[in-house]
């Protein structure tokens, strides 16, 4: 399943949730998995979806760390 996080496409196992996409994104961008707990996850329309939201093929999500 391919999902896009902040314009970076990551490939994940079937059944992955929003936190898994962000973890892969953070590691891929060499930002460190620990950042996951500091940020918030949103869908493409800007709704917050939390860490455990189910994902579907092609979904676009955004990960933001509050300033």
């Amino acid at each position, binding site marked *: *399943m391919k999902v896009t996080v902040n314009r970076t496409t990551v*490939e*994940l*196992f*079937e*059944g*992955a*949730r*929003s*936190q*898994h*996409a962000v*973890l*892969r994104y953070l*590691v*891929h961008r060499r930002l460190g*998995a620990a950042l996951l707990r500091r940020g918030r996850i949103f*869908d493409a329309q800007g*709704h*917050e*979806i*939390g860490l*455990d*939201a*189910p994902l*579907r093929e092609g979904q676009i999500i955004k990960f933001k760390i509050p300033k």
Partner: protein
Amino acid sequence: MRKLLLTLAAICLFGIAASAERKEVHILSVNDMHAKIENMPQLAAIADSLRGLYPDLLIVSAGDNRTGEPLNDLYETPAYPMVVLMNMIGFHATTMGNHEFDAGGKGLGDLMRMSGFSYICANLEPAPAFGVAPRPTQVFDVNGVSVGIVGAVEINERGTPDTHPDNCVGLSFTPVLETVQKYRGLRDECDVVILLSHIGYDADVEISRELPWVDLIIGGHSHTAIDGGEMHNGVMITQVTNRLENATHTTVTVENGKVVGRKAEVINVAGYPKKNKVVEEVVRYFSDNPAFQRVLATLTAPMTSYEELGCMMTDAWRVETGSDVAFTNTGGVRYDTLPAGPFTVSDVLRLDPFNNDTVQLELTGQELKNMLIATHDADIEYGFPKVSGIKCEVIFDKKNPKKIKDLKITMEDGSKFDLKKTYKVATNSYSASIADSPRKDPGRSLNRTTASVIQAYLEHQGKIDYTGACRVFESVSKR
């Protein structure tokens, strides 16, 4: 003069009659509670307050009431605490979420029999063998207004909700839109029509185009935080994020049998200042769950290292999933000693507390080798992963002692590890996420937590002894 008075009286009477036709329906809705039982006293207090104002308050859930909290999921009858608490709060109805099926048809049927609220789900066929008898629709009389609810659960490409396929054996589902459309007659029967949906926000928006006869979609599944209601194609859609952080209070105004107003507001549940004391006591009772002290196996010798406990954990995942190899990031092993004696449910939950899913992949030897190194690199403060089915000789770079210079793998029985052969590999969802290495098969969740797999292993083993177990051997390169 007399004529004028009569006219005024007629206008007043007409006005009274007209205002008598304007009524409000109040709905308190939640979705994806995922057994967050510690927030149920606050939800109960919110329901109490709203009921004080609106005695006919309708309380509904858009599914996924269970799964996500061991206090609930590991109860002797799994998910029984949530059903009791929903009964106490006075829920009228829920639809099915994909996680309502996590205990299979029989588990669901058992819970349905204990529930004081309806399960409304049009696209789940009744399964009398399990006692699974959902209603496709239900009409409620709310403050003299007829409110019709039709329910639906998401269906994946296998034709079942997202749970382990074994959980859906004996159950059958029909396509969402096609099935919901069969009940469009509710529009003629009722003043207000609601779709109680567990299909996700995007699908709710899409389906709203085809459902002009629906007034309100109370959604779930995607954990989408909608700030109040959103109008899409003339249908209001509501949903909140998961684990009972919030709930939605929706007001539907009906005049002369027609919906003339819809508004929704989000209520913060987690931060609500009041708690229902009786519900709080019941939550406390469930929190002292004796099921956590249940003995799964006997440890005949003490566990004395992360390595020994990691060997046990990964053996559990390998054996119980029928895999050739299993591994975990070392940070996933949360303690390093356990005295000989009973190995309880509580011990497992302390050892593996993250609610990770079990993930299975089919990897070539080379892909597995790359994945182990990638897991180490992403979890570098904890060291090389713990493994089962193989032995690893890890050689770190002398100049950079955290960097792996070489990794030699043999099968656990000493036979050759083949870089070209395909192996079935089990791991946790965290490792499968952080391991950013190339592989053809991204894997799949088995829809079982890794902790529940460990429990099953311990129960099957009865007695265990991991004295001296060691499968990872580390050294530093000479150059």
